[in-house]
């Protein structure tokens, strides 16, 4: 049995970050989830990361340019922790020995609005 949906006043407020990802080796969505969680836990710790309410909503692949694979993604986080998530993701540096760069290129309140940054 599913839980009843919370009334709007009790729901968490979300923000959607549009990420620009460059990496030397190809990745799939599941690997991005690991990268994001690892980056947040490493910089902010387990206790703080628990508040972030992280979720990878969408994942887009682009063609390889200048020797790196290029992806974009929309990631959900809780409204009051945007700065923490942004800074943690910016500090992601390596994944499986390959160089990676994640930077936030857009921030919005809905998934639809965040798609304009893709």
């Amino acid at each position: 049995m599913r839980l009843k949906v919370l009334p709007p006043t009790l729901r968490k407020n979300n923000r959607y970050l549009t990420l620009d990802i460059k990496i030397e080796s190809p990745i799939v969505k599941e690997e991005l989830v690991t990268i994001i969680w690892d980056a947040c836990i490493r910089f902010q710790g387990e206790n703080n990361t628990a508040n972030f309410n992280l979720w990878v909503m969408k994942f887009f692949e682009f063609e390889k340019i200048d020797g790196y694979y290029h992806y974009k993604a929309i990631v959900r986080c809780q409204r009051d922790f945007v700065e923490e998530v942004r800074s943690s993701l910016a500090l992601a540096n390596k994944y499986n020995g390959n160089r990676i760069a994640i930077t936030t290129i857009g921030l919005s309140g809905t998934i639809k609005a965040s798609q304009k940054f893709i």
Partner: protein
Amino acid sequence: MFFDLNIKGSSLNNNVKLANEAAKYGWSHINFSYNQNDFKDALDFKDELNEDLSDISFDYTLEIESTNVNEIRKITNKFRNKASCISVVGGDLKINRAVVENIRIDVLSRPYLRRYDSGLNHVLSKEAVRNNVAIELCFKDVLRSYLSHRAKVLSNFADIYELYRKFDFPLVLSSRAESVFDIRTTHDFISFFKQTGLGEDEIAKSFETSKDILEFNKNRDKMILKGVRRVDDEA
């Protein structure tokens, strides 16, 4: 206006790539840094680089890497009129001291480098204020380190912030990006420094400081003494 005074310069093609990426991520001005050995060669392709870059303004920083105080002084005097910004890589206490005492140097870059402390104290801070030498903190030092080493760098940052709040020396934040993997958006850059304990107004002030350094150096040859500048127009 977002200024980055320290992006590691290399070949023409690589510089173009870095500058285009920086422009895409919201930076308005970047300085490519070269050490004393490569600076002259870099000046040769400056015009070519200028033609290739339209979205972003750029200039060169001379980044002096030496452990000899006399050598630093000589290199500074040699390149003072050619570079829009002169920075010296710190870390050694003698170097840190000599740099903050030299009014012809603009930036002491990373005084905490390869040290167990921040490399600054109240004496050096006062000298930095007196000689208007900015202290530079690099994002790359945190980005490229991990676990205990990263924690120590962040702790050094916090010590420098404490001295900065008390003595108000010029503070400069830079990325020291070497490749496109090291460049982040300006918002990410600000968010990171906010997380390390710097306030929003302090970060904005650091960008202003970078701008002021470049402005000041444009008119440096016209300065008779601090606060007095020779003007050409008679009106």
